[in-house]
């Protein structure tokens, strides 16, 4: 029995690995979304080299210049300029940096906190579970964006503040779902054996429970990346997010509103398209991961 138990997992892993790789290619592997996300990340990293102008300084004489292909546009400002004469392309490029930093950090922090609390809540049970879950319920009662706006109004604008605020809003989803998964994992034989073998609660949670719920956490995080980016844009748009003159896409949309009635479309269409493209890519990737790794999560 010993031999077969030890052999079968590795044997099946060898058998399924090429099959899994093949499935990656055939079953709608989201090549385009991943390429878009990678491009945005590269743009964010190399913003300093890529941007043709300083994103925060403009020439007032060059205000509201349209993109290069329209009449009155210049090649110097490929995508035009805003109400302060700042280069839109450069602001979009640096805006990617803020979206990537905020989006990734928020899902990392929220995912870490939420997963940890979900595991603790699900494994320890009893009053610990009650306290954590009631708190989760209370926080879930407020729509994420409204809660974030409230927090932002108290704390004040700033990139690091937004990260803390959005993480504080988004951990609840992980806690709720991971807890549900832990409830079933803790009843499995290997966990019971670990208890009998005298493992501490900490070791069991870290070594035996965590690896079994980490897939769900990753899927959730990917799906939440888009939400976090939209939330950051919303806060910035409302003036409680990234403070001016920093080039955040949401802030650019707020500025773009000033030229909207005059028909300066590029100030509204371009930053919004960037948000949409990035969020859409994250959602497509998340959907694919969800079906791929965690069919039980399909309900979400």
């Amino acid at each position, binding site marked *: 029995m010993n031999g077969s138990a030890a052999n079968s997992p590795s044997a099946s892993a060898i058998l399924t690995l090429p099959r899994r790789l093949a499935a990656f290619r055939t079953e709608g592997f989201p090549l385009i979304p991943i390429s878009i996300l990678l491009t945005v990340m590269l743009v964010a990293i190399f913003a300093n080299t890529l941007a043709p102008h300083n994103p925060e300084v403009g020439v007032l004489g060059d205000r509201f210049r349209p993109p290069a292909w329209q009449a009155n546009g210049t090649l110097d400002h490929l995508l035009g300029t805003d109400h302060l004469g700042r280069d839109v392309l450069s602001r979009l490029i640096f805006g990617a940096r803020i979206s990537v930093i905020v989006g990734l950090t928020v899902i990392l922090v929220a995912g870490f906190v939420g997963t940890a609390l979900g595991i603790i809540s699900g494994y320890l049970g009893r009053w610990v579970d009650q306290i954590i879950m*009631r*708190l989760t*319920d*209370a*926080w879930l*009662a*407020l*729509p994420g*964006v*409204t*809660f974030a*706006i*409230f*927090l932002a*109004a*108290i*704390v004040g604008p700033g990139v690091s503040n937004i990260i803390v605020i959005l993480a504080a809003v988004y951990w609840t989803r992980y806690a709720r779902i991971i807890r549900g998964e832990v409830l079933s994992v803790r009843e499995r034989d290997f966990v019971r054996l670990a208890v009998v073998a005298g493992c501490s609660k900490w070791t069991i949670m870290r070594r035996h429970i965590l690896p079994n719920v980490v897939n769900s956490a990753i899927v959730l995080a990917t799906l939440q990346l*888009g939400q976090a980016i*939209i939330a950051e*844009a*919303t806060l910035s*748009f*409302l*003036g*409680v997010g990234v403070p001016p003159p920093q080039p955040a896409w*949401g802030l650019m*949309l707020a500025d*773009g*509103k000033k030229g*909207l*009635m*005059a*028909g300066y*479309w590029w100030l*509204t*269409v371009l930053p*919004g398209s960037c*948000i*949409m493209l990035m*969020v*859409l890519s994250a*959602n*497509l990737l998340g*959907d694919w991961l969800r079906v791929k790794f965690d069919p039980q999560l399909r*309900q979400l």
Partner: protein
Amino acid sequence: MKKFIVKRLGLALVSLFLLSLTIFLLMRITGDPAVLLAEPGASAADLDAIRAQFGLDRPLWVQYMSFITHLVRGDFGQSFYYRTDVFELYLSRLPASLLLASAAMTFSLLIGIPTGIIAAVRVNQWWDSVGKIFALLGLSMPSFWVGLIMILFFSVYLGWLPSSGSGTVLHLVMPAIALGWVFAATHMRLTRSSMLDVLGSEYVKLARLKGLPEALVIAKHALKNALIPVLTLAGINLVIMVNVSIVVETVFAWPGVGRLLFEGIAFRDFPVVQATVLLGGVMIVVVNLVVDILYAVIDPRIRYEG
């Protein structure tokens, strides 16, 4: 049944308690609440007066008790900007938000339910893919951006619709679409999965075996049951819409509670911000409670689970 209602009521009260405690503590952890509650540019003497008025020098739990007793009486303080009772101000703005939310809900159901049905009936075919793309797009566009794009197109270029304000049906069209867009996507997804469940059930198979025309099977047997979860979600979403409409109301200068919240932030009118967020939370806890109880009344199995 009674036991179930009491239990759910208890849980809702715990949620409300934790919600108020969270907001209360956050205000005190993140800084001096007197500064938040004072008008911008208040002098040190003003701050002392506010500390005395709100009893901010007392122990925390005493402060919390008085905070709660004020809230229960509907006393959310005075707005700095409007110089009126915050609760009255909220109530005066609520009808506009409810109107907008109802219009947005109508739009989202008109789009979401038919596309969801088509996607389910023609599952994994061309229509289904179109529906999926539509839903993903809906979830990937910030509602305020949808609003801005519509203003650009329908107000600036075509001149068909007013870009902001309220009063006529025409004023309502763009905000309702901008707000309803995301919800149309979620309603479509739920209609699709709910229809798929029902279409696979025994009684639909039986209806087909009886030789009923497919259209009748779908319209009469499947749809009726598939719509129950969708309409439940719509009920909850209506309340959520009122509370997330801040961006859309800001874009279109719609005079609802969302706009009130935005003005509260812009003018540093903190009592308004606090009241709007708290009342929003209360509304959502209450609607969830009502839905839970209604479900338990309809479906006795739920009573024994929870």
